[in-house]
C-alpha cells in the first residue's frame, strides 16, 4: 500500500504571524480557494467520503471486531483520506488569507495605491479582520478537527493493517462510527466558512 504524505509531519497553522509578510504576496485568491473548496469539500469530502463512511462505518466496525479482513474496494475508499490530506491542509491554511479583505488591496481600484501604503494597510486590514470576524478561532477549530480526524485515521489504518497490540481495545466503541462523526464535525466547520471575502 502506498503511504503518500505522512500526515504527522504536516505543519498545521496555529497562529498568525503578521510580522512574517510572506503571506502578503503568496495569498491565495478567493476564486482559487473557492474552487479548491468546492472540489475538495463538496465534491469529495461530502459527496463521496462522507457517503462512503455513512454506508460502511458499521460494516468496518463489524470487520475489526470479527477480525476478518477488509475488502480491497472498501480499503481503497477508506484510504482516500490520505490522498486528500495535502490539499486539505492547503485549504485550511489558506482560508484565513483567502477570505481576508486584505485581498481587495490587490484589486482595482485599491491596487493603484502606493506600495508602501498598501503594505501597512494590508497588515492593519488583515489584523482587524482576524480579530473581528472570529476567523482566528474558526481556523484554530478547523486545525483541531483536522488533527483529530487525521490521528484517528492513522490509528484505524493500523488496526486495518492487522496490528494486534491491543489497539482495538484502546479504540473504544465503535471506532469507525466515531471516525464518521469526527469527519462530519470537520466538514461542518468548513461549511461554516464564508464563500466571499469578509469586509468588516
Amino acid at each position: 500500500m502506498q503511504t503518500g504524505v505522512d500526515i504527522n509531519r504536516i505543519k498545521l497553522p496555529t497562529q498568525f504571524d503578521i510580522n512574517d509578510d510572506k503571506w502578503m504576496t503568496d495569498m491565495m485568491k478567493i476564486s482559487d480557494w473557492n474552487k479548491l473548496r468546492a472540489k475538495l469539500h463538496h465534491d469529495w469530502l461530502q459527496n463521496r467520503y462522507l457517503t462512503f463512511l455513512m454506508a460502511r462505518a458499521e460494516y468496518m466496525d463489524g470487520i475489526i471486531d470479527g477480525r476478518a479482513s477488509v475488502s480491497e474496494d472498501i480499503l481503497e475508499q477508506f484510504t482516500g483520506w490520505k490522498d486528500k490530506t495535502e490539499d486539505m491542509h492547503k485549504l485550511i491554511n489558506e482560508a484565513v488569507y483567502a477570505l481576508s479583505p486584505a485581498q481587495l488591496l490587490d484589486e482595482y481600484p485599491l491596487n493603484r495605491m502606493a506600495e508602501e501604503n498598501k503594505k501597512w494597510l494590508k497588515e492593519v486590514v488583515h489584523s482587524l479582520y482576524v480579530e473581528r470576524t472570529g476567523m482566528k478561532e474558526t481556523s484554530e477549530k478547523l486545525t483541531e478537527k483536522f488533527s483529530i480526524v487525521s490521528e484517528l485515521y492513522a490509528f484505524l489504518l493500523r488496526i486495518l493493517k492487522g496490528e494486534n497490540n491491543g489497539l482495538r481495545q484502546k479504540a473504544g466503541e465503535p471506532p469507525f462510527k466515531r471516525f464518521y462523526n469526527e469527519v462530519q464535525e470537520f466538514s461542518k466547520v468548513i461549511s461554516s466558512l464564508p464563500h466571499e471575502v469578509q469586509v468588516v
Partner: protein
Amino acid sequence: MSLPKVLVIDDQFGRLIADRRNLCFNFGLVDITGDDSKPEKVKDPVAEAIFCSGQRVEKNQVTNDTAIALSAIKDGWPHQDGWLWAMVLLDIRFVSGKIGKDKEPEGQPGDSDFGMRILDEIQKYYPDLPVVMLSSRERKEVSLEFSIKGAQAFIPRADEKGPGFLKEYLHKYGLLPDEEGEIVGCSKALLTALNSIRRTAFAGDRRNILIRGERGTGKELIAGFIHRQRARGKASPFVVVDSSNLTDELFASLLFGIEPKVATDVAARTGRIKDADGGELFFDEIKDMLPQVQAGVLRVLQEKEITPVGAKKPIPVDVSFISATNINIEALSGIGSFRPDLLDRLREGGTIFLPPLRERIEDIPLLVEKFVRTAEKSIPKAKHRKIEPEALEKLMRYDWPGNIRDLENCIKNAVMQYPDVEHLVPLHIRFPEGEKIGDKSIYSSSITVHPREISEEYMQTPLSAASNTFEEKKLPVMLTEQSRGIVNYILQALEIYRDKSNDDPNYPQTWMAMTGDTKKRNSSEYQRFIGNYIFQLPDEDIVSLMKQSKVFEKAVLQCGSKIQSAKKRLTGIRRFFAEDKVN
C-alpha cells in the same frame, strides 16, 4: 406491491459506480440502471433507482447536457410498460470540463448550479413530475432558487437524516399508487390525483373537498382514500350519504338526528352528521340536493353544530365534508340551481378532478385483472382464466362512457357467461352500449359521442326567451340529445354575448330571462360562464363544433382561456383542431 421508481440525476453518482453503491446503501435504493455488474444489495429498499449523470463524456472532456437528463425523464414518463417516475432526485452541482490527473473533471463556470438549469427544463416540460433536490450544497445557499423553480424539498445527502427524509418525501410528494390496492391503477392522471390528496392529508388539512368526475369513475373510492389518508391508521368514522335520499321532509331527521321522546311514534336516532363526528361525511351526488337541504347543510358548515329534531340546544360537531358530483357544479351554481355559498364551503379544501377511464386506458389491464379475479371468486366453480392480449386490446379500444363501473360489469358478465373456460378472449366481451368500439382518433369521420350526465333541471332550463335567429342553431347534428341540450344553451349564450358586444341595450334583460341570473356580468365573467358550458363537452364534440362554426371556434379559444381547469384541455384542442384543418 412493486417499489416506486425514482430517477436520480447526479453527475458523480451517475458515473462513479463504487460511490453509487454507497448512496444506494444509505438511502435504500435498488439500482436498476443496468451499468453495474454488482449492484448494492439493499436490506430495506424504499425505491428502485435509475441513475443518470446529465453529462456527455467524450475523450477527456465531460460536458453538462440538459438534453440527456430530459431524455432520461422521458423514458419513464410514462414508460411503455406502464410505470412512471414516482419522483426525480436532482443534484445541484455538476462538475464538467477536461478530466484532470485525479480522473475528475476540472470544473467550469456554471457547474455549481447546473442542476437548477435542469430543474427549469423539468418545470417546462414535465410540470407534474415531483422533484426533490439531493445535494451536499448548503441548503440556505440554494433554498430560494429551488423553491422558485418548483422543487418540492431538499435532502442533505451527507446527513444521516437524509434517508428518513427520502422516505417521507416519497410518501408525501411521490406519484404512488394506492398502497392498500383499493384504487387500482398507475396512470399519471390517477397518481396525480392521489398525490394531491396525500399532500393535503400530510399537512393535516381537514377542510372540505369536492370530487368531480363522470359517473363510474370511482368517486366514493376516492372519498374513502381521502378518509384513510387523513385517519392514518387511527379509527375515525366515514359516513356515506346519498344526496338524492335527502327529501325536504326527512333530511333534518336523517342528517341531524331525533331527540328522544319527540313524539310517541318516533324513535330517537343519531343523525348521520353526528355519526361522522371526528371523521368524514361523504355526500354523493350533491347536484341532487334540494334547496331546503342545501340551506340546512350550509348552516352546519357555517356554525359547526347541529340541532337534532326536538332538541332545544345545538350540539357541536367536528366533521369534514367530502362531496361528489358528475356534472360541472360550478356552472349549475352560476345559473342558480346550486347555492354558490354552499359550493364555496364544500370545496374550501380544493376540487379533485377524477379522470374518465378513456383518459387512463393504461390502467385497464390492472383493473381487468382485479375484476376478473373478483368475478371468478364470486361465481361458483368459475375457472381461473388467463386474460388474453387480444381481449385486453379490445377492452382498451373502447371509450367506456360508464367508466370503471361499466368495465367491472362487462368483466363480470364475461366471466358469468363463460365460467368454465381458462381464457378471457374477445368473444366473451360485450360492451354495455353494443359493439361500438371507439376509434379514439378524433379525426374520425364517425365520432362517437357519449351522453354526458347532466341533471334534468339543467337540461330543462328555459331557453325560450332567447331569440331564434342564430344562424348556426342546427349545427350539432352529430351529437346526442343530451349533448345537444348543452350546445343549444351555449349557442343561446353566445348569441346574447354577440348582442352584448354590439352594445345591445336589452342585454341584461335577455340574459336574466335566459338564466334567472340578476347579476350584470362583465366581459370576462361572461366568457367564463359560457366556457363552463363549453368545457362540459368532450374534446371530440368541441373540435367537431369548431370545425363547423367560426363563432364557436372563437368562443372556445376566448372562453377556455378564462377557466383554469380548461387551459390544459385547450392546448390539446387547439392542436387537434389545427392539425385537423391542415389534414
